[in-house]
């Protein structure tokens, strides 16, 4: 939609604004239609709506709402897939194993050296 509008236009930015306003309007109407809008914008508007009533809600109510919002955000989180998880875990384990080997090898050598130089004669 935006593309067809703008083609051959001199001032693109003005149109960008238009498009953006459209988007907002769309969203707002969609919001009024159905509460379960999938758009990311719902959260803020909900908050804006409930702001006047905020003073009536007690501290527990507010905490409760906060936790509900936390859970709401958690639902939108994209968790790693099984494959991703296995790859990353394997990479981390291999990395740690390599570093462990290097560091303990170094430590062993240094320990030998320090014992040889500063240690008690055997």
């Amino acid at each position, binding site marked *: 939609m*935006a593309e067809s509008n703008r083609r051959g236009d001199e001032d693109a930015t003005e149109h960008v604004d238009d498009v*953006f306003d459209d988007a907002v309007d769309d969203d707002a109407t969609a919001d009024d239609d159905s509460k379960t809008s999938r758009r990311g914008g719902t959260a803020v508007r909900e908050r804006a709506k409930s702001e006047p009533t905020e003073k009536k809600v007690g501290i527990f109510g507010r905490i409760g709402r906060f936790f509900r919002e936390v859970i709401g955000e958690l639902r939108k989180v994209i968790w790693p897939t099984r494959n991703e998880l296995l790859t990353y875990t394997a990479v981390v384990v291999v990395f740690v194993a390599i570093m462990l080997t290097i560091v303990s090898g170094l*430590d062993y050598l240094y320990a030998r050296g320090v014992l040889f130089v500063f240690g008690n004669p055997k």
Partner: protein
Amino acid sequence: MLSAFISAFKTPDLRKKILFTLGIIAIYRLGATLPSPGVAYGNVQQCVEAMKTGDQSGVFTLLNLFSGGALMSLSVFALGIMPYITASIILQLLTVVIPRLEQLRKEGQAGQAKITQYTRYLTLGLAVLQSSAFIALARSGQLFNNMCNEFPIVPQTSLPDWVTVGMLVITMTAGTGVVMWLGELITDRGVGNGMSVLIFTSIAARLPSEGWQILDSQGVWGFVGVIALVLVVITLVVYIEQAQRRIPVQYAKRMVGRRMYGGTSTYIPLKVNQAGVIPVIFASSLLYLPQLALDFMRSDNPGKVYIFIEKYFATPTSWSYILTYGLLILFFTYFYVSITFNPTEVADNMKKYGGFVPGIRPGKPTADYLSFILSRITLPGALYLAIIAVLPNLFFIALDSQAYQNFPFGGTAVLIMVGVGLETVKQIESQLMQRSYEGFLR
């Protein structure tokens, strides 16, 4: 995956960086094994042998000697990176309190350099304090729990005492300065964040001997069980570190000259744990301070304050310690997220390049929206950090054993290892991508 490691070494500039980092690590370990002047190393050796009750032999006696050994032998780098961390926490906290520091931070590059400079001075100050505490501890024999007072670590010499002690303090403080520099070198020219890489190294140095201890006391099956548990925790940590809340961003198409730019839709990835491992490192080093204070106040007839601190803030199994630790982690997670991710700045940048979150106006509403999500998504992240870090302490209480006081595979250590591992591997990965090699993470 192995081929990725090989291609990492085939890329010249990456190979240089990796080797540089490994070289720094080698220097760090050398300094951590090298005893300071004035320390009778033979006595340390005899002391460790006298303390040793088990029949561990060969390699592991040696490693044991040097694992916690950096402190035992009062090595040059005995203090490690700890004072630097403490100093940087203090300065970051002060930035919020002192207006002048905040002004400096807002100044950008130059101001940041000045703050770093202050951090360095403070580090040296802390190093002087800490090293004198350790030396006092070692001279009174309490470093080994008074178990081998017949072998003094810092023996009397023909020199006056203050010369020896002064020498030790100067050496260890200078050592701390060098460690700080090594860390900064890694950040500048190596792979990963210097501070975390060095912490990672010192944890990695402790692991073999502690693993051996578990093998010794728990038998093979206990050891296998612990390893399995660690793998589960690692997987869990990776799972949450990878979780993102993606905020959709739409870029408007714009004409620049005769070409069209933008028009793409992308997202801002907000990690559930946006702060990484830093809060854990901060919290644990802050909780180390009461212990340090105790080392200073140590006397034959401890006062009320001493007993209070020791009972509630220096025993990892006491409920107040666990609670404080958890709360500190929560606090530092929010604190660190708030100083590293600035919603207003991100929103401004988006606006500048013609981007917007669908349904949200650019500018302030977007900033509000971002901070709304950030404050909500950080809570589970912070809770997760606190729970993983505190888990082993709860485990001790359940087992009621003092033997695992320094449990190496504890939450803090695993968090740091996995966090640093992921961060470093990803950095290598992105450099590989620049060379269009296939990375580790397919």
